[in-house]
């Protein structure tokens, strides 16, 4: 793997005695698409602003390419930011906006003109040089904000919920655009979002954060398939999270029924969180399941049906391609490798708070 470009060491930050980041340690590799994911107030934007130089950590260091840049002002850093609300300069034309950073670096006129042309082409807005900021739609403004940042050839591009203000269709288009851009430019992207789908689609690495702590770092597949705790499981996709007891290695009791599983090393009779993805719950004939229940709701979602089943006092979320009408009596079965066992969180800090995705 490529080398570490940014190293955040023991970063601590609080506002008005409210702890936002507590001893955060994180490194970012060269050419990585890294996403900071979490609910609002989890500290992801603060982390980004510390990298950008807009906030000073109370303690800890920011190492960039081997140098300590903790005390450097934003204009002295080799990173550029794409702001959530675009932050284009309203009194300048599109070309002037894009040229802003280049003029400060005293680049030649022809260099600047070439760069503007190149950047506009890159974001699919050729010929927009003379336009004013107000004449652009939200999506176009966002592209210009990206163009304005990348002409400076930063080693790292920071993106603070850049798609947050766009509508769904545009957001999906822009996700692919960003991936393409990242591949063409070959630089590091650090992306902040609270949208798990966005994170899963685009990232090489996802950092799930909650209440100032990193919950899990991993590839999208890792995060989705192997969440390390109930917060991550709940925040990434939908899950059935049920209280259970680990009876012994490879056997867990859930809702009064013993399920074989693949996890080991939890000890005997230990309370745990049992996480089962809705698409991993199989609905079968009553006598074939390990427990029986009744369908309470049925929603058609296109590729699959979303079905709620009341069984042993728990409402199971199930996604399946087979239809079961409301009121149907069904059996439930889960394959052992689809059952995730997690330790109960030790402090309430790690507990899922409000999830505003």
């Amino acid at each position: 793997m490529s080398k570490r470009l940014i190293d955040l060491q023991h970063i601590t930050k609080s506002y008005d005695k409210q702890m936002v980041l507590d001893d955060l340690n994180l490194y970012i590799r060269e050419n990585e698409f890294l996403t900071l994911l979490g609910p609002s107030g989890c500290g992801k934007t603060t982390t980004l602003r510390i990298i950008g130089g807009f906030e000073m950590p109370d303690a800890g260091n920011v190492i960039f390419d081997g140098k300590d840049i903790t005390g450097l002002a934003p204009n002295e850093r080799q990173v550029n930011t794409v702001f959530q609300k675009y932050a284009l300069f309203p009194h300048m034309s599109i070309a002037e906006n894009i040229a802003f950073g280049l003029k400060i670096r005293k680049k030649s006129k022809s260099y600047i003109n070439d760069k503007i042309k190149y950047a506009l082409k890159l974001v699919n807005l050729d010929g927009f040089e003379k336009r004013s900021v107000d004449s652009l739609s939200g999506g176009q403004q966002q592209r210009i904000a990206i163009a304005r940042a990348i002409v400076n050839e930063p080693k790292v591009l920071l993106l603070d919920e850049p798609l947050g203000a766009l509508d769904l269709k545009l957001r999906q288009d822009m996700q692919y655009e960003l991936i393409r851009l990242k591949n063409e430019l070959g630089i590091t992207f650090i992306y902040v979002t609270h949208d798990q789908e966005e994170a899963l689609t685009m990232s090489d690495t996802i950092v799930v954060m909650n209440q100032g702590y990193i919950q899990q770092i991993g590839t999208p597949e890792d995060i989705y398939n192997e969440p390390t705790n109930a917060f991550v499981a709940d925040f990434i996709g939908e899950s059935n999270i049920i209280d259970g007891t680990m009876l012994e290695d490879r056997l867990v009791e859930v809702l009064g029924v013993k399920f074989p599983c693949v996890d080991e090393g939890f000890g005997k009779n230990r309370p745990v969180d049992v996480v089962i993805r809705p698409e991993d719950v199989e609905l079968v004939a009553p006598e074939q399941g390990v427990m029986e229940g009744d369908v309470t709701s049925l929603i058609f979602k296109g590729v699959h049906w979303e079905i709620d089943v009341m069984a042993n006092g728990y409402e199971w979320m199930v996604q399946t391609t087979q239809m079961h009408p409301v009121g149907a009596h069904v059996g439930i079965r889960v394959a052992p490798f689809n059952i995730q066992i997690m330790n109960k969180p030790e402090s309430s800090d790690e507990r899922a708070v409000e999830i505003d995705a």
Partner: protein
Amino acid sequence: MRNLKRQLLAGPYLIWMVGFVLLPVGMILYYALTTTSGQFTTFNITSITASVHLKALFLSLKLALACTLICLGLSYPLAMILNNMNGKRHGLIVFIFILPMWMNFMLRILAWKMLLSNNGVINTVLGYFGLPGLDVLNTPSAVVFCMVYDFLPFMILPIYNAMSRIEKDVIEAAKDLGAGSLTVFFKVILPLTMSGVVSGIIMVFVPALTSFAISDLLGGGKVLLIGNVIEQAFMQEYNWNLGSGLSLVLMVFVIVSMALMNSHGEEGGAGIC
């Protein structure tokens, strides 16, 4: 159509405007272009070139310009400092700086007349330290001083408002792109507050140019501004035709200076309204 019915709500206002705004301006035009006996003349207007009137006009322009520049110089840093302050007491501090403008205009003049007079507070304090007293009362300096005091809020308000409308993001974006604080100021803050500066200049320059009460009370009859000439033509000489003629000239000056300022301000955003 309902729309038409709703438009009619503006009817009373329209009638009022015609009766009490347009018609009166027409009256000025009429008086300005006639003699006392109702004959057509341009004398009332051309009499602005009489040396007394011309001198008054130039003095007015000079004092108004001085007052505007001083107000601008005082207000811009003030607005910046106020805008950069955050925290709980921010609202209170802003409040403190707008409170004095709510004091009656005439009483603010009174305060300065009292402070500046030869046996007033300022001279007494100066004398206490063995410094020579200021003999500014009844001079143009006193008039400018008081104008600044009276019109300063009109400069602070629009500049502060323009400044507080600048998104924090935009400033951060400029820094992010490599701008130092000077560049941020000249390339981003100043252009984005230009509309406020322009309306501030208009809101200070116009009343300063046309004021007559301040010069009357603090100039001791020695500072004759164009406003005083017009006021005297109406209230002392009862020469309404001459007064109207000079008013018309003043109106043109006001309109021209506003048009000039607004055309400059256009680049920086909206005009005054």
